[in-house]
C-alpha cells in the first residue's frame, strides 16, 4: 500500500470510456488481479473523496485503469492529459483467488459494462499460469465494448454480448453465460464483475450449476483503506454481518455473499 503521485503516460478515450496508463513502480510491482486503487481526481475539496478504480492491467512499472464517465469525478479524470500527475493509493483490497494449480483449467470471466475492468488483468494472469480464461463481455450496445481488440491482441478468447444485438450475442450477458455453459461445462471457477442485478442473476445460474464463483462487489467507498466502515456489504460468515468491501474484498466468494 503506497501513496503515489503517478504520472499519466498514456490515455485513450472511446466516447465515455477512458483508459489511463500510470507510471507507478511500487504499486505495479505488488498489484494482484481484483485489487484496486483510490484516486484523488484533483486537489480541490470538490469533489472531496477519492474514487476507486480496479487495476485493469499491469506491465513493468505501470498500471492501467479503465473507467466509464458517470459523474463529476470520472469527468475530471477524463480531462487529464498525458504528463500530468495523479495521486493514487494502492494496491488495495483482496483480489481474485487463482490457486496455484491453474494449469489447463478453464475459467469463465464475466464482465458487464465497466465490470470488465479488473478481468483483463485477471485473464492475462490466468493465461500466464497456463490456465484457460474465457471472457464474456456484455454491454448495452457495440460502442460500450471498447476493450474487445485488447483481448484479441492478447489472444484471449472473448465473447461479446449486446442488449441491442449490434455485436455478438443478442441479449443479456446472463443468457450468453447459460448458453456457453452448455458448450463448455468443466469449469473450474467463474469470476464476475458488473452491475449488482447482473451478478445476482449470474449467482443464481452458478448455484444451479454448482459452480465455484467469485464476485467483485461495488459499494460507495469513503476511504478504501478500511478506516471508515463506509463500504460494507452483507456476508454470511458464522452469522450474517456487514463486512468492509474495501479491505476484506472487493472480491468475495459466492458462498458468503448475501445478494
Amino acid at each position, binding site marked *: *500500500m503506497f*501513496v503515489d503521485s503517478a504520472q499519466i503516460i498514456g490515455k485513450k478515450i472511446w466516447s465515455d470510456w477512458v483508459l489511463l496508463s500510470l507510471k507507478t513502480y511500487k504499486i505495479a510491482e505488488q498489484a494482484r488481479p481484483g485489487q484496486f486503487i483510490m484516486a*484523488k481526481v484533483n486537489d480541490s*475539496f*470538490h*469533489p*472531496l*473523496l*477519492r474514487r476507486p478504480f480496479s487495476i485493469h492491467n499491469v506491465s513493468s512499472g505501470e498500471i492501467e485503469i479503465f473507467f466509464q464517465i458517470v459523474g463529476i469525478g470520472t469527468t475530471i479524470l477524463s480531462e487529464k492529459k498525458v504528463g500530468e500527475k495523479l495521486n493514487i*493509493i494502492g494496491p488495495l483490497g483482496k483480489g481474485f483467488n487463482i490457486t496455484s494449480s491453474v494449469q489447463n483449467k478453464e475459467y469463465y470471466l464475466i464482465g458487464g459494462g465497466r465490470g470488465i475492468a479488473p478481468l483483463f488483468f485477471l485473464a492475462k494472469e490466468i493465461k500466464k499460469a497456463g490456465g484457460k480464461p474465457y471472457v464474456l463481455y456484455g454491454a448495452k450496445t457495440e460502442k460500450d465494448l471498447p476493450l474487445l481488440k485488447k483481448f484479441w491482441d492478447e489472444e484471449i478468447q472473448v465473447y461479446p454480448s449486446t442488449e441491442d444485438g449490434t455485436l455478438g450475442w443478442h441479449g443479456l450477458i446472463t443468457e450468453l453465460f447459460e448458453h456457453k455453459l452448455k458448450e463448455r461445462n468443466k469449469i473450474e471457477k467463474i469470476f464476475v464483475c458488473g452491475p449488482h442485478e447482473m451478478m445476482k442473476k449470474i449467482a443464481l445460474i452458478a448455484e444451479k450449476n454448482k459452480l465455484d464463483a467469485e464476485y467483485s462487489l461495488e*459499494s*460507495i*467507498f*469513503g*476511504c478504501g*483503506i*478500511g*478506516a*471508515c*466502515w*463506509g*463500504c*460494507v*456489504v452483507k456476508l454470511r460468515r458464522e452469522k450474517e*454481518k*456487514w463486512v468492509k468491501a474495501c*479491505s476484506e474484498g472487493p472480491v468475495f466468494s459466492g458462498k458468503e455473499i448475501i445478494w
Partner: protein
Amino acid sequence: MVDLTINLGFIKLRNPIITASGTFGYGLEFSPFLDLREIGAIIVKGLYFNEREGNPPPRIFETPCGMLNSIGLQGIGVKKFAEEILPKLTDYGVPIIVNVCGEEDDEYARVVEFLSSKKGISCFELNISCPNVRKDGKCPAISPEWTYNIVKLVKQSTKKPVITKLSPNVTDITEIAISAEEAGTDGISLINTILGMAVDIETRKPRLGNVFGGLSGPAIKPIALRMVYQVVNTVKVPVIGIGGIFKGVDALEFLIVGAKAVQVGTANLIDPLAPLRILNEIKDFCEKKGITKIEDIIGTLKVGD
C-alpha cells in the same frame, strides 16, 4: 526548532494533532502509511460494550466540500478491542484515547470500567454526540441534563481522564459545555458531525440507508470554529477543536480561537498522511513567524481594534 508539545493538564501530548474517532480505524490501518508514534494521540473508532452491526448501506454520500456518513458505530466491542487491537497499538508508543459509546447511559460506564484496567489507554472520549445511532438523530449531547448525568456516571466509573465530545446540533453549545464541566469532565472536544440528508432524484430515495447522516469535512469548518470559540470562552477545562481540518491553516485557526489541540477527521479518509502533513504545515508556519512554542499561539485571537 519549534516546541510543539501541548499540556492538556490531564495528559501531555507530543504535539496538538489528534486523529478523530471513526476516521482512523483502530489506528493500525494507518501504520503502512505513517509512523503512528509521531501523532499527538490516536482516538480509535467508537466502542460499544458489545460488537455492533451498524446501519444499513449506503452509509456514505459525498456533498459539496463535505460528506454524509451514517456508519452507525459498527465496531468490534471492548473485549475484542482489548484482546486483538490494544496490545498491537500500544507497541507504537502513541497515546491512545478510546471513544466511548453507549445505547443506555449505563453502557458508557460499563465500557470505561472494563477498559480502565487495560494497559495503554491514556484517556476516554465520551461520544454522547453521534447523530447516527437513532433514526431521529437524537443523542445525549443535545440535553444539558442528559450530558451531565452521563459525564457524572462515567467519572464515577473510572480514574482515567475523560474528554466529553459535544454535538453541534444544539441551540446553545455553551450550555451543554457548562453541564459537562460541572459534571467533572477533564476536557471537551467538539464538534461531532452535523445532522444532514441527501436525496437521489432518480430513485426518490434518501442517499443513505439510514435516511439521516452526519455531515463532516471542510464544509462544516466555519460552524465548528464558531462553536469552539464559544465554548473556549465559557469553560475552564481544555477544549479540543474538530471539524473540517484539512490543512495546517485550518488547525491554526482552531488554536488561535483557543483550542488546545485539534482532531483531524475526514481528512484521514482522503489523505492517510494528513495528520503529519498538517503537523508539518503548522511547524513551517511557526518557523516562518519565529514562534518557538506552539502554546504561544493558543487563544491569541484579536477581537475588536
